[in-house]
């Protein structure tokens, strides 16, 4: 059932309109003069009723709006359309402005005749201010956002330009690469995007290395290091790499940003330096070894020289001793009855002097040989007779030790052309060695052979032999094998012999076993090259 409300009377309407404080509700006549007022209007516009009645409503408009005849437009529109809503600045009594929302309503009587307009004005200033503030804030925010975006873009641009950049998702699949990345890896963007980052693995780093890398970044920490990667063409490059995990709201990485710089040159330089260093170190090691060995040799030589000097002194002192003691005895044997004894000792003195002279000549000939001052003078002679002479010369030495020579000649029947003096020195030296290093009553075997154009003379003894470790040094200067400690000798003999044999254009070698004996063989051409030596006429030679 619809309750019927009694129509309110005019007085109540008046009450309603007059007392509403938030809205200015008033009437203007068709020309715009204010004919009613309410409390709201007073509050909003500032005029009291008595002040405003009869005034034109255009006084509420700003100078600008008035100039533009805005008020007239509003009236016109209201008249034509029946209603118009407008928003704009309105002026208060005190001159201040407020933002108004105004509704014009055309009021017509029952006959349709315009009797005026109803105006309802709301002060929208606060709202407008708020709106303006929001706009302003929005604008500011937009600007800030723009700036931030711009800054971020600048950073990104800078990084993109300066560095090699790649972004992978949390699984390591490449989502983005910059141009520098493409340039250094030689892949195109389309070849990289969507690929697992392992595409650039070089195989240089160990599994443990990558495990450590992943552990670092998957726990949200930044990883920094140097990586060796492989480009599309198989070449390698080194990059200084920083990988930054981007964390979501759960602190879990959702993507990884890798910023790299090319350090290939530096690495290459480093590798080169390492190689050079290693090379240098190797050279140093080698050189040190060389020097150490040289020092060793020096020491050895020095020791040998000392031995030689002391041995040489012994060599001199022995005959000198014999001379001095013989002299002493000669002094005693002055009577004629001691004639024989005197002569014996004088002979002894002479022999010792010869001995000394031989030793001296040995030293001197070594020097001559070393200086290349020995002249080779070849002569034609009968080798067999020559050998017999030599054996005879050795007789004295042999007798002392009761030794014997066994001699066999299978050499050339015709004459040979060689330096007789040098050959004699060689053979005497070898034979006296055989005597010296053999015990008493032993035999010494001499054989002469011929093969083609060469003569071979071998001398075999059954003496102390040469220890294996000494054999390689036998022809070295001053060298003496260690089983000769108590036997006199200067260590020069074989050195001299070898040099002599070379002058004969021959060769010398030996076979030996310790405590069994040695066989020395000299070979030389039966006819020495006449150009390289002087051939002596036997008539004028003086041997």
């Amino acid at each position, binding site marked *: 059932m619809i309750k019927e409300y009694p129509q309110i009377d005019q007085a109540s309407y008046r009450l309603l309109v007059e007392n509403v404080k938030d809205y200015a509700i008033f009437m203007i006549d068709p020309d715009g003069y204010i004919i009613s007022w309410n409390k709201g209007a007073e509050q909003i516009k500032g005029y009291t009723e008595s002040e405003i009645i009869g005034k034109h409503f255009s006084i509420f408009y700003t100078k600008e709006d008035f100039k533009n005849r805005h008020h007239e437009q509003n009236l016109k529109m209201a008249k034509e359309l029946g209603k118009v809503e407008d928003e704009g600045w309105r002026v208060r009594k005190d001159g201040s402005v407020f933002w108004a929302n105004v509704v014009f309503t055309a009021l017509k009587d029952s006959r349709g005749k315009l009797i005026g307009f109803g105006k309802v004005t709301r002060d929208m200033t606060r709202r407008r201010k708020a709106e303006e503030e929001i706009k302003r804030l929005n604008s500011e925010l937009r600007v800030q956002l723009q700036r931030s975006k711009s800054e971020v873009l600048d950073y990104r641009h800078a990084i993109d330009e300066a560095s090699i950049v790649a972004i992978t998702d949390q699984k390591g699949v490449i989502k983005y690469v910059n141009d520098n990345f493409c340039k250094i890896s030689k892949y195109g963007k389309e070849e990289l995007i969507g690929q697992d980052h392992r595409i650039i693995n070089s195989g240089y780093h160990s599994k443990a290395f990558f495990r450590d890398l992943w552990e670092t970044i998957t726990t949200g920490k930044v990883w920094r290091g140097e990586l060796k990667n492989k480009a599309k063409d198989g070449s390698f490059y080194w990059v200084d790499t920083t990988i930054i995990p981007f964390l979501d709201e759960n602190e879990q990485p959702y993507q990884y940003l890798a910023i790299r710089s090319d350090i290939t040159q530096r690495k290459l330089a480093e590798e080169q330096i390492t190689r050079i260093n290693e090379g240098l170190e190797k050279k140093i090691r080698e050189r040190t070894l060389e020097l150490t060995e040289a020092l060793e040799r020096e020491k050895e030589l020095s020791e040998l020289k*000392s*031995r030689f*000097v*002391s*041995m*040489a*002194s*012994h060599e*001199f*002192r*022995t005959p*000198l*001793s*014999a*001379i*001095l*003691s*013989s002299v*002493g*005895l000669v002094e*005693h044997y002055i009577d004629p009855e001691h004639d024989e004894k005197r002569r014996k*000792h004088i002979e*002894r003195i002479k022999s*010792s002097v010869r001995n000394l002279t031989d030793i001296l000549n040995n030293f001197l000939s070594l020097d001559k040989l070393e200086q290349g001052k020995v002249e080779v003078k070849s002569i034609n002679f009968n080798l067999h007779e020559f050998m017999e002479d030599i054996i005879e010369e050795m007789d004295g030495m042999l007798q*002392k030790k009761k030794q014997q020579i066994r001699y066999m000649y299978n050499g050339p029947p015709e004459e040979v052309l060689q330096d007789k003096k040098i050959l004699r020195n060689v053979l005497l030296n070898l034979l006296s060695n055989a005597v010296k290093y053999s015990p008493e009553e032993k035999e010494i075997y001499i054989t002469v052979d011929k093969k083609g154009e060469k003569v071979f003379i071998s001398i075999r003894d059954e003496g102390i032999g040469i220890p294996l470790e000494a054999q390689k040094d036998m022809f070295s200067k001053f060298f003496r094998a260690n089983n000769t*400690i*108590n*036997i*006199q000798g200067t260590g020069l003999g074989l050195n001299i012999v070898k040099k002599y044999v070379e002058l004969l254009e021959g060769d010398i070698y030996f076979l030996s076993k310790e405590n069994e004996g040695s066989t020395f063989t000299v070979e030389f051409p039966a006819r020495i090259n006449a150009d390289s030596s002087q051939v002596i006429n036997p008539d004028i030679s003086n041997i």
Partner: protein
Amino acid sequence: MEKILIIEDNAEIRENTEELLLLNNYTVLVAENGRAGFELAKSYQPDLILCDMMMPETDGSFFLKLAKEDDTVRNIPLIFFSAGSFCPEVQRNLIKGANEYLQKPFTKEELLITIKKGLDTKNSNVNVTPSSVDLSNENDNMLMK
């Protein structure tokens, strides 16, 4: 007549020394190496021994070792003579083991005086340190190293 044993491998020196000693009324025994020398020393108990240091096969060291180990030989006065050797230490040790030392070449006077000294040692029963050691020769004497 005192008995002197000469141990020396070089024939000339051995013979000359023997001759000299005979002329000075000594009885002389000779040996050519250390072993033979020791055998003679033991058998004949000389009053003095003259021994060369460097000989082939059995040298002065060899002789000294045998001598020191034998009660009858060890106290016989010993004179070493030498023309120098390889090892100065060996030489030094040998000299320490002897009563006297002579360097070759030596004059007959030097030899006779030294022998007298050695014999006096025996008679007075005192072990005298060698006084006639000639260490001043620079050229070849390695003792001074």
